[in-house]
């Protein structure tokens, strides 16, 4: 009663209580008989102890726990999962890894634990795709001082390959399908010269088994006639080549063995280090000696040059360029159409379907401006230009096929895990998805 006499005054002067200490008793113990703070807090615990219940993880928590220890890595165009339970034995689920129109691909990769490390490589993999592609391969190699070498064997069943005709003026409506079963076995030996250069050679034996493809597309023979070189014939090649590589790119991560040296042709066109600065040049000369028919021999020269110009203003990384040229000399001989160089698709000329343009010679230019938009996401605005032609006399450099668009790259620790490119070409919009970086 007495307090009430001046309580209104006090309320009028009461301070902002937003951050007043609020001991637990203030909120939970009104009416309690416990005379001390410690007793009240003790009582709260005793009360809880009477209704104790072990926590039940939710479904999401269970799922998160299950995947918490799973890691992954992307090596060129493959995403390799590291699941601890399987990792002990050297097995890994792998996604991607089949070329062409394989689509969604998965398989098992075995890496013998006794031969792994920065200077060692051993792997066996079996892959299959939803579009009935399948394949198997093995690689075994190592680095000893300045020398690098590895052997490889690979088989691919590619039942839904597409051919649109020769030259830059081929029509999308003239699409034909074919099947190609291709095996290759060989070895590569290189020697590093200084920290940035590599020179070497490789020998491979390649078998090609041609057939009609799956699906509704007409066969190549129906669409383009049986005179087209390679149609209806099984051809084997002995490939002997030499290469030179100069690599002064920066790399945001340590290079694993497989990052720098991939087997044969993809070695020059598929290996990215996610560089933002520096220069890369690779050139290769390979003679393809047909086993059985000399009029199908040919020699191919490729040049792949990449430049990375940093800006590093804010999160703008800078500009990246690539120039690629492939020249095939056959001395009047024929070249099987499926061994012709092609452009189109996520890894060359975006805005067009995979393998859209084929001919003996190819010129390709890619340009990108790259920036970081999230901690694990880069964006690129890009433009591509490509041309295919039979001879240099017939090339029309004023009318290349152009593609341009916007792309997003998922990154982790500097590595590009996957990318999505939305590109516009002369034939409309195309959505490209791929593992790893383009260049």
């Amino acid at each position, binding site marked *: 009663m007495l307090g009430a006499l001046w*309580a209104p005054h006090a309320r009028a002067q009461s301070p902002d209580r937003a*951050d007043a*200490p609020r001991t637990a008793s203030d909120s939970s113990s009104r009416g309690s008989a416990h005379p001390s703070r410690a007793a009240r807090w003790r009582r709260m615990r005793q009360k*809880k102890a009477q209704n*104790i219940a072990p926590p039940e993880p939710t479904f999401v928590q269970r799922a998160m726990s299950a995947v918490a220890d799973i890691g992954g890595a992307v090596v060129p165009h493959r995403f390799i999962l590291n699941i601890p339970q399987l990792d002990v034995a050297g097995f890994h689920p792998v996604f991607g890894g089949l070329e062409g129109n394989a689509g969604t691909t998965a398989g098992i990769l075995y890496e013998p634990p006794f031969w792994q490390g920065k200077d060692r490589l051993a792997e066996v993999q079996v892959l299959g795709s939803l579009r009935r592609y399948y394949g198997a391969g093995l690689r075994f190699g190592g680095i000893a001082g300045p020398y690098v070498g590895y052997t490889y064997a690979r088989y691919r069943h590619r039942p839904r390959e597409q051919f649109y005709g020769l030259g830059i003026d081929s029509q999308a409506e003239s699409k034909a399908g074919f099947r190609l079963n291709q095996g290759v076995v060989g070895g590569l030996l290189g020697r590093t010269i200084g920290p940035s250069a590599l020179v070497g050679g490789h020998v491979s034996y390649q078998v090609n088994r041609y057939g009609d493809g799956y699906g509704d597309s007409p066969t190549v023979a129906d669409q383009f006639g049986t005179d087209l070189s390679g149609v209806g014939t099984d051809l084997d090649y002995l490939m002997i080549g030499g290469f030179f590589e100069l690599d002064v790119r920066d790399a945001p991560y340590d290079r694993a063995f497989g990052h720098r040296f991939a087997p044969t042709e993809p070695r020059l066109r598929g290996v990215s280090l996610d560089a933002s600065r520096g220069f890369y040049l690779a050139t290769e000369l390979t003679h393809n000696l047909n086993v059985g028919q000399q009029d199908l021999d040919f020699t191919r020269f490729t040049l792949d040059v990449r430049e990375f110009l940093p800006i590093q203003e804010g999160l703008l990384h800078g500009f990246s360029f690539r120039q690629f040229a492939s020249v095939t000399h056959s001395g009047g001989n024929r070249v099987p159409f499926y061994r012709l160089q092609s452009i189109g698709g996520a890894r060359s000329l975006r805005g067009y379907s995979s393998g859209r343009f084929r001919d003996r010679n190819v010129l390709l230019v890619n340009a990108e*401006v790259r920036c970081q*938009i999230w901690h694990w996401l880069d964006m690129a605005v890009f433009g591509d230009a490509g041309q295919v032609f039979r001879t240099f006399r017939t090339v029309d450099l004023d009318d290349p096929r152009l593609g341009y668009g916007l792309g997003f790259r998922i990154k982790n620790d500097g590595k590009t895990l996957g990318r999505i490119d939305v590109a516009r070409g002369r034939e409309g919009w195309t959505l490209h998805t791929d593992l790893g970086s383009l260049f």
Partner: protein
Amino acid sequence: MRALPSASAWARAVGRTGRLCLLLVLVGAGSVAPASAQRFLPDDPLWNDPDRMDMPFPESTTSVRGIGPLEFFRRSFGVPGEYTAPAQNVNTVGGVPNSSWYTNRHYRSPLSRAALRRGPNQEPGPSLRGPWRVIGVETRGDLPRIEVRDATGRRFRLLFDAPAHPEMATGAAMISSRLLHALGYNVSQHWLRRIRPERLAPKPDSGITPAGIDSVLAQAARRPDSTYRTLVTRIPNVARRIGPFRFRGTRPDDANDVFPHEDRRELRGLRVVAAWIHHSKLRPRHTLDVGVREEGRRFVRHYLTDLHLTLGSAGATPKPQWSGHEYVLELDRVFERIGTLGLSGGEWAEDASPEAAAIGHFGAKRFDPRRWRPEWPNPAFQRARPADAFWAAKKVRHFSRADLRTIVATADYSSPAVADYMLRTLVARRDSIARAYLHWGGGLDQFSVRAEQLTFADLRATHGLVPDTVRRTVMWRAYDNQARTASPILVRTTSSRESVPVPAYSAPHLRATIAVPHAGSTHVFLRRSPPESAGPAPHRVVGVERTGPASPRGP
């Protein structure tokens, strides 16, 4: 400086109404109020939380539970304004009682240099008699780790630096373990050792091979003398490793755990501490609850772990530049970068902090403790109020340069320049924190009554943030502990001194309101001790309550 008014002057200043009220209060004080309604209980302020009662251990959680996508998005895009409740586990003077989470140390009772250097270590380090028997190796993850038993049979965990960043992770852990321990948090014991590979031998029948140990050491930074610098850690008295604690809710199977973690002041205030030591990677997986047995009681003690992820270190690599500046997902920033090709929306990329191999990414130039944030939204941090930040900031600022030099020396950096940089950066970040948070309530603390003088420390003046001539207005009121209301002003005065006389009124409780221009005010509650126990000081401080300026900003 104006002289303080005498008691007679105070009496004249009290109006007629006030005198009447005071009289009524004095009379009312004779009646016995039920404890249930009292604001201040006999044992206030409580400095020991009885949260170490004998309780069954919770079940171990074998793996880290993620927060789930819904919770993540809620934290990332929730409205911070909804968090207004003050911390719950505080005593009536705004302090955090000693508990299984926290122990008041350096601020309440300054630690000696030796104690700062020793930090959390309460046992001898691993015995150097005989080899350390390896019972586990771990090559996955960011850094190589080994688990060993020494000749005494005790288990220790070893962690090595990455070859590209020798001393970075181990140095960060040594410094942060000492800082966090002195601040009051529970951390593992940390020792720094140099070992030769021969010290490590596989434990028989453990499945560990010498080649396995070699493969771990191959991923570690090796010193020119072929030794390895290793961080040795051990949590004492572990009866059961339970698993990480979360920063929200309570553990349902631990009866001692009754305060929601997001409402624990030491976890809210940890936001300020984490900003200081750049522990931006802090999240549940870097914490650990352990069951301990002490004096016949079983209870859970709560630890902060993985301190090698503090300062500039992210483990094997320096912290990314964005760390500390953004949460993992801030969509407005993402769209800003998309629209500008990255030219805007990433100002942290301009951070020019030196990135020496042993330092990582750690600087003070662009450090703003109010804007600092962990990589993953933390519910306790998001609920931090100015009072929580003030509580932490005063403890952070309490470290002197000499204290910090002592602690940095425990990292044993091979380069004096690195040690000097670490010291300067910690000092600069400490000062930034003080400037940001010490103004709350006028920056007054350490209240006590001595010789009937209410004494306190003006932390802002002590640390040079304001001149020591700031005049404060002191208003005394009688306080009704039962009704929780205050009387009209009994006495009003102004002073720039850090002590004011307690007015000679015999009310059971008095409230002094100390208003500091432009910085809020602090209410100090005094209780008059019963005559039989009064002793030399009839009053003692039982409550402190701070308020900010008109529109306080969140931390």
